[in-house]
């Protein structure tokens, strides 16, 4: 419950933030704090310095381009995403954010934090994988943009390296999306979740079953379960679910998410 000693800085530009992160291996970015502060309370991780991103306007904002593409700043909170008029261009974003934790967490927690922490039970990594989001990372060497398959690397690990920051999330136009989850209590932590997108081909991304979202494709919702089985997932067992139960839920939820996506056509 009590943090170790830590230094704190609140940069006023992304460049300054990058400088601070690059200068110290033990520096971590502080976004919403809804995950990181708890990790620090448990002393499971104790950065030397927290680089507070909350003053960086450049990392905020949601823009809607003429072709329907959304460009979202990573420091956008879940509440802001839910209330954003622009984000209604991709309704699943607000719908899923509304299921994350509670009001207090949604007022501080950020979409960027959710993606960069890449907890396997998070909602947004599988959602981004299903809808084909692209993440832009900026570091000392410049900027690069990639899809979720390159962005999510492992449990709590993403392509954002030391001295780098996620600066933009780009989401293509689309409305035919679905999301299904079984959670610990209503709108609680996910036991298994699945996101689907039927804009063009049908893609389903599974969360909670592996270190990173597992993506499968199918012709139609009827083929989704087979696709999940073919993916050969071996989900973890924990106090909330056995591996076998998770694997079963993955099939069921993948199909449900897929049907939701298709029914919106």
């Amino acid at each position, binding site marked *: 419950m009590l943090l170790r000693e830590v230094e704190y800085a609140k940069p006023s530009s992304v460049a300054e933030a990058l400088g601070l992160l690059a200068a110290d291996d033990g520096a971590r970015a502080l976004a919403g704090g809804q995950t990181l502060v708890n990790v620090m309370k*448990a002393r499971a991780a104790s950065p030397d310095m927290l680089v507070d991103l909350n003053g960086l306007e450049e990392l905020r904002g949601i823009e809607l381009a003429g072709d329907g593409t959304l460009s979202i700043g990573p420091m956008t909170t879940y509440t802001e995403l839910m209330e954003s008029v622009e984000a209604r261009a991709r309704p699943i974003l607000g719908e899923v954010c509304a299921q994350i934790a*509670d009001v207090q967490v949604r007022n501080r927690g950020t979409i960027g934090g959710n993606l960069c922490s890449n907890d396997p039970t998070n909602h947004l990594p599988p959602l981004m994988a299903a809808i084909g989001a692209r993440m832009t990372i900026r570091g000392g060497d410049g900027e690069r943009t990639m899809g979720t398959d390159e962005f999510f690397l492992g449990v709590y690990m993403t392509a954002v390296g030391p001295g780098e920051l996620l600066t933009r999330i780009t989401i293509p136009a689309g409305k035919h999306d679905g999301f299904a989850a079984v959670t610990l209590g209503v709108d609680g932590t996910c036991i298994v979740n699945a996101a689907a997108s039927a804009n063009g081909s049908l893609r389903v991304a599974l969360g909670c079953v592996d270190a990173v979202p597992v993506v499968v494709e199918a012709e139609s919702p009827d083929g989704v379960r087979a696709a999940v089985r073919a993916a050969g997932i071996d989900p973890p067992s924990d106090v909330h679910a056995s591996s076998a139960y998770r694997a079963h839920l993955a099939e069921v939820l993948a199909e449900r998410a897929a049907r939701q996506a298709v029914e919106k056509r």
Partner: protein
Amino acid sequence: MTTIAPEKVIAPQKQWQGQSVPRKEDKRLTQGQGVFVDDIKRHGMGYLHFVRSPYAHAHITSIDVSKAEEIKGVYGTLTGEEVAALTDPFFQIASEPGGQIKDFALAVGKVRYVGEPVVAVVADTRELARDASELVEVEYEPLSALVDAREALKSDAPLLHDDAGGNLMWQGTYEWGDLDAAFAEADRVVKIEELHFHRFNSTPLECDGALVEFNRGTAQWTIHTNNQFPGFAAIMMGPAMRCGLDKLRFVTQDIGGGFGNKITSHPQLVVCCLLARKLNRPVQWTEWRTDFHMSMSHGNERWFQDTEVAVKADGTLLGFRTKALDDAGAWLRYEPLGGVIWAQVTPGMYRWRHIRVDFTQVATNKAPVSPNRGYSRMQHLWFTERVIDIVARELGLDPVDVRKRNYVRAEDMPYETPNGCIYDSGDYAQMLDIALELIGPVEERRADAKARGKLLGVGIGSTLDSGTNNFGQSRLINPELQFSGNNEVATVKLDIFGEIVVTLGTTPQGQGHETTAAQVVADILGCSMDDVHVRAGHDSYWNSHAGFSGTYASQFAVTGLSAVKGATEMLAVEIKKLASVIFGGVPAEALELAEGGVRIKDNPEAFLPFMACGAIINANNAGLPEDLDVTLNCRYVYRPPFEVPDIERKFGNLTLTYAAQIHVAVIEIDPETGYYDIVDYAAVDDCGKRINPQIVEGQVMGATAQAIGAAMHETYEYDEDGNLLTPNFYDYHVPHALDMPPLRTGFIESPSPFTPLGTKGMGEGGGAGIHAVCAAVQDATGKIVTDSHNPYQRVWELLQ
């Protein structure tokens, strides 16, 4: 749900009891002006952090605190070795073998559960105490861990306590009636191989805590704490600390929930006391959520094995035999009382007469068990409810019919159970009817659910809330014990300016004692509730407590309020005696108390306000008759009418009152996932005379919510190495606002013939929600439910 409409003014001269008057506690609590133990500060206080065991079972080979103590700002430490030198082991309730174990305030030589306190570090800030604890070096030699109670008595099981010679802590056989005859008479014997009641507790939102000061000159400790049973804590701590009990002053004010889970904090309090003395400064201890989950007050986990039930073809239950295996965790802190407490409700709500329970309690490498809301009765009542539903299923009978056929009936009351407990009053069949009516017809709902692809299930949970213990039952555990009966104290005085001041011995954690006590006082004294001031909380120095004082075991409405009634009636007699003299010899029968004073019935203008009475006795007493025995400061000890039970036959009345609750749950299961919702819920209660209906309903609702949480989500689950897998609120899910079903409530009032006010203790609820959800899952799935905990995965597995 009763809601008091703000526009309705509670008429001052009407009876206060029976009305849902606003609570006196609410103003300070809604304004954030409550005083909870962590709110209290003392100049120079040191903050305490416990170094806790990372192993479930290990020898401690060395402890080195030097690096921690070197840090500037660290005031000092305490180890088990010091505790063993300064204190004697805690008194054990058990006889052999459990009574042989040596329980100290810190681990001595060995650790026996993950999270067990090993060393205490005190520093000038919370953060520094935490940091410094990481510099304490403890070397362990790990041992294998015993995590499954069913393995505890095997010859190769890890041995927790050498002093006990094995993991058996207590064993007892209870048998009443004639089992052979019952089983001979039976048309069917239903066999249930194994039932399991799981480990969880009520996780009060405020964790344990204390701020302890030591007065060197008087060797007096002042313990600001939220312990809910100071009488018990004192009895445990005094002998251990080798001091008189009056040297331990307990002070509590607002407590953030107890539910029984704040009874056994005495080991940590001893540590705080020793450090306050050693370091010559106040010591402050806050327990964090993870500490609480890992180390405090888990509820009894109990297996019921090889159950056999003797039944007639028409569903009449004749009797049962079972083997109860209770998992006490690593230490006996209030146990093995759980080995007898269940016997308060031996037959549950049913009329069977032939019963045998072989009760075995063992130690395991898990957190120590101690009372949790419904303590030990809940486990047994769940068992009887499972038996009813399983028997109904086996015989193809309606569970409603089986219950009604077998319930103790209103005309049977007061009803003596096979082991001599007396159910005071009640009408269970009527309550069941009310509950079913609240839910309404179910078959159409079942069809509708099916059309939506869901499985609907309806389940009944009937339960008793036995209240006001006879502590003589402890002798059924250990005949050497010198405890029996029960008591509670109240003091009511009329102060110099006519203030009516009430002092209780209890330690409320939200039950509204200040309010209900004032209602009782106001009715007797004929004044307004606003003129009755009830002191908040508990303080040993008020000298208004006795050996059993505290707030636990569903008894305040009986013990606390009866003490209040007694003290107030004493005061009323004294007021009239005084008034009699002042009015020139008018006899007491001609006087009445009304409108804040005392007056002559036939001549109301002859009126002496309370202020005058108080002033005369306290400050203006010259000329009063020498034999006028009036102090206007009346202390009353309520003693419920109990006998010491018959130890041989294990027979006798163990509790004074029996409140009852009957719940019905309607669930819908998504068969593809096992996920389920409670779509409708009814709770009907009977706690005798209700002093404040709104407060009673609040308790019923709270118990319902906790039971739903336990049934669906809450569990203290361990891995094979003894690590707790649900050590915080992230993994241990307690229900929140979105998890609550719609709730319909109803009530009847069957006054208790045994209590001064006709009230019955209530508040524990007996886990009715757990019983109802289990029954609903069984109904929906068509499979027998054998575990009290039914998360989605278990429901899905039942359907496979």
